[in-house]
């Protein structure tokens, strides 16, 4: 009986509280800070080139083996990133790659709306991961 009385006051209070849900496509709320979305390859602000040197540590450390890194050596002997692909169908957004990156070249963006009609679209290339739009803190 006490439980019912307690429930009564909760239900009564709820009538005067703000709803916790939103009608999704129409209304959105800011996603929480430090949420983990798709990877983002950082760019050097001076040269506007990718910071990543293609060392491949992220692909080694990835528990799902969803990262593939290819590197090439330039004429001056410097190692640069040739290709970077991320398979979103495997990624569990654990954030290990970000933590282990020595160059601090990867961050997690706030991009989370990843559903698509084709599985092929879930494999993101270097150009997709550089796009700044994924870095912006979105609303959901």
């Amino acid at each position: 009986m006490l439980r019912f009385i307690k429930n009564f006051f909760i239900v009564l209070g709820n009538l005067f509280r703000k709803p916790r849900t939103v009608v999704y496509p129409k209304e959105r709320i800011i996603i929480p800070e430090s949420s983990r979305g798709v990877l983002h390859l950082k760019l050097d602000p001076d040269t506007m080139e990718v910071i990543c040197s293609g060392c491949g540590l992220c692909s080694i450390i990835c528990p799902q083996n969803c990262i593939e890194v290819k590197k090439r050596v330039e004429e001056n002997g410097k190692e640069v990133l040739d290709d970077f692909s991320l398979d979103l169908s495997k990624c569990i957004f654990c954030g290990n790659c970000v933590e282990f990156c020595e160059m601090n070249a990867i961050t997690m963006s706030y991009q989370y709306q990843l559903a698509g009609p084709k599985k092929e679209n879930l494999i993101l290339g270097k150009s997709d991961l550089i796009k700044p739009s994924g870095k912006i803190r979105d609303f959901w």
Partner: protein
Amino acid sequence: MLLILKKIFYILLLLAVNLYICDYAGNKITARMELRRGYRITRLASSGFPVVRFIKDLSSGNKINIWTFYIFIFSFLMWSVVPITAGLVLIDEEYSLFIAVVFYITLLIMLVLNSSRSNYTGVFSENCKKLLMVFSFIAPVLLSILSIILLNKTLSLKEIVNYQHNYWNVVLQPLGFIIFFISMFFQLKLLGIIKKSYVSTGVYGGKEGKGLEKIIERLSIYMIIFFLIIILNVLYLGGWQNFYIIRGEIMVAFKFYLIFVILLFMDKITGRIDNYKLMVRINWKFLIPASVVNFLITLGFFVARDVYNLVLF
């Protein structure tokens, strides 16, 4: 003839308006109680939500079978004898309470039987459970009504209201009122206004109708709830008696919506009671014994007063 047509029109209009208000308010209030915004469709179409849902359901199928048609007819038939207010009744019958209860029980049975149509195995036991539950909740209602009949010595709903010009029956029959209300509340839970009902959807065989069939099923469930609220009002809460300077019709509307909102509140407070055993236990261990005790007390009082002249008032 014209007068009857006018009355039919008024009754149907009143029922339609009440359906609209209760469907909209029920969904809105339930959503707010759960801290939800409400259905998306409610937000888009705002107060047009019941109409939008009606059209949406209708578009998914318009075929009905003969049982659903009977349910549709019976859900309106009960309003021919139940007086909503003093003037709003088609047939002013001396046994209106008896006829109304017969219509109500028939409608409930037809609802259960309608959900029993299935080709799956294991339906029989499931439907036996449903029948047991439905009838175990009808029993206390009938016993409470019997006590009222004893008290007012009439089967006419109009006369029962007229007898309450000094005291409402709730003063003389508080236990009966509580039993009727709880039983009514569990019937609401069983039939399910906002949620899917246990009667129409079961674990094995019961199926949820679609299209027009679903609309009629919902309509009949609303009609049963409306009927129970009106009967509770008439039997215990003074019906359309004026309350000081407030007119009776306004009082009926006020009490109707008050009871409806209280029922919604209780629905949320008690949470989900899916286990039919729990409901049967509540019923067989509390409601039916209490209603029997109430009936026996009432009967004993009248026997002591009228037969043995033991009570001097």
